[in-house]
């Protein structure tokens, strides 16, 4: 009687181990499949943001920097500055406000000065600053923005 019971318990255990291993063997590839592969695209080093002539003093433009937005601004003094346009709070895209000459995030009312530093609102830190160069002369001059 006991021998019979032990054999049954043993076989049941063996069966359970088999089922659990099958489930694990299926779950592992599925779990790995669900994690998206790291993008093969290299980090963008630089991009042409705009023609120098299209940016008047006290205006800004959002441009494509790799696959994320950047923003280039000509200050009222005529100086060019560029930042990542991704708000450090929750990844919204910031814009230039001409009336206050500040960068403003419409999602939660965060503001940054033209040095990229937080002025008010929820952003935890300043915007990533990019280096700005002007390539060429006259009307064809391009504003080239690169990772600092």
């Amino acid at each position, binding site marked *: 009687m006991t021998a019979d019971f032990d054999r049954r318990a043993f076989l049941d255990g063996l069966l359970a181990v088999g089922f659990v291993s*099958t489930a694990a063997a299926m779950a592992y*590839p*599925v779990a*790995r*499949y*669900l*994690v*998206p*592969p790291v993008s*093969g695209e290299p980090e963008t080093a630089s991009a042409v943001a705009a023609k120098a002539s299209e940016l008047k003093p006290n205006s800004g433009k959002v441009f494509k920097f790799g696959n994320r937005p950047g923003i280039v601004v000509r200050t009222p003094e005529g100086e060019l500055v560029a930042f990542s346009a991704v708000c450090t709070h929750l990844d919204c895209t910031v814009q230039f406000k001409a009336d206050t000459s500040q960068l403003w995030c419409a999602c939660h009312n965060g503001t940054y000065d033209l040095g990229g530093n937080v002025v008010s609102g929820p952003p935890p830190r300043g915007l990533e600053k990019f280096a700005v160069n002007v390539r060429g002369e006259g009307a064809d001059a391009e504003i080239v923005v690169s990772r600092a």
Partner: protein
Amino acid sequence: MLQKTIDWLDERVDLSEIRHFVAEKGVPVHTQKVWYYLGGMTLFLFGVQVATGILLLLYYRPSAAEAYESVQFIVTKVEFGWLIRNIHSWSANLLVALAFAHFFSVFFLKSYRKPRELTWLSGILLLFLMLGFGFSGYLLPWNELSFFATKVGTGSAGAMPIMGHFLLRLLRGGDDVTGATLSRFYGLHVAILPAMATALVAGHLLLVQRQGMSVPLSIEKKLKPGEKLPQMPFFPNYIMRDVLAWYVLIAVLAALAAFYPWELGNKADPFAVVPPGIRPEWYFLAVFYTLKLIPSHILGFEGEKIGVIAFGIVALFLVVVPFLDRKSLRGERSPVFTVLAVLGLVYLVTFTIIGHYAK
């Protein structure tokens, strides 16, 4: 632990009916019972298709510009993406093969006879749906082979009398196979057909549970009045055998996926020269080859039209078989229908083989 959970549930929702059903359900034991496994195996592969299909949806992009690239991305960049895609493709083929085997076994055993006409009806509709799944899914990787095969396939639908042109435009989403066709086939493949299949599978299974397994006519006739076949409990005896069959399928699928990866081929290009050897999936080969053989005109009618009508009649015949076979309905042998089934099987097998090797 498990017992505690069941008790907890039982206290709140009375489980006695389910418990009763589980304890009572039996499967008749006789020499032909091996055919009972086919339905369960087909059902298992349907589950595999649903699971791997959902996984593929996470990366697949249904547009002419991105479909091919996204499948390429799945099989080359995503971890185990090759495995998921290969299993989906292989399982689809095995599913159709098993569905056909299930269909023929039921036909030969005359299990469609009263009271199981509705089970047969839902089953035959499911078989057609599976072919629809295969046809629509074939195009989704948007490669050369599938692109031209879809042109041919939708083209033969256009040969249908009266509503042919309408049907062709309905299928293609226009006059030609384009990105619009891909969108349609995608919607069909991942939404419309799954919804219909789920409802039909549920109905099919409900009927099987309600009525129990059919006993083949030949065995039923040998029983003395009042005599009953011995029964095997479904839980756990029979279900364990079912699971064993599913394990065989898992092994076959894994081996096929690993050693015979499904080719992706070249991206579809509507302006490319048609590559030689364009043919549909193997389960359409018999029909494809038959339509090829029919002369262009028969007694003044277009040959293609006659072929398509003939296949339509065969499909209709299959749907209403339980109502035509009066003899098996009365529990008598019906050799005519057995002969028809044999002819059908021989036709399908030979024409598929010839179609495969034909130039």
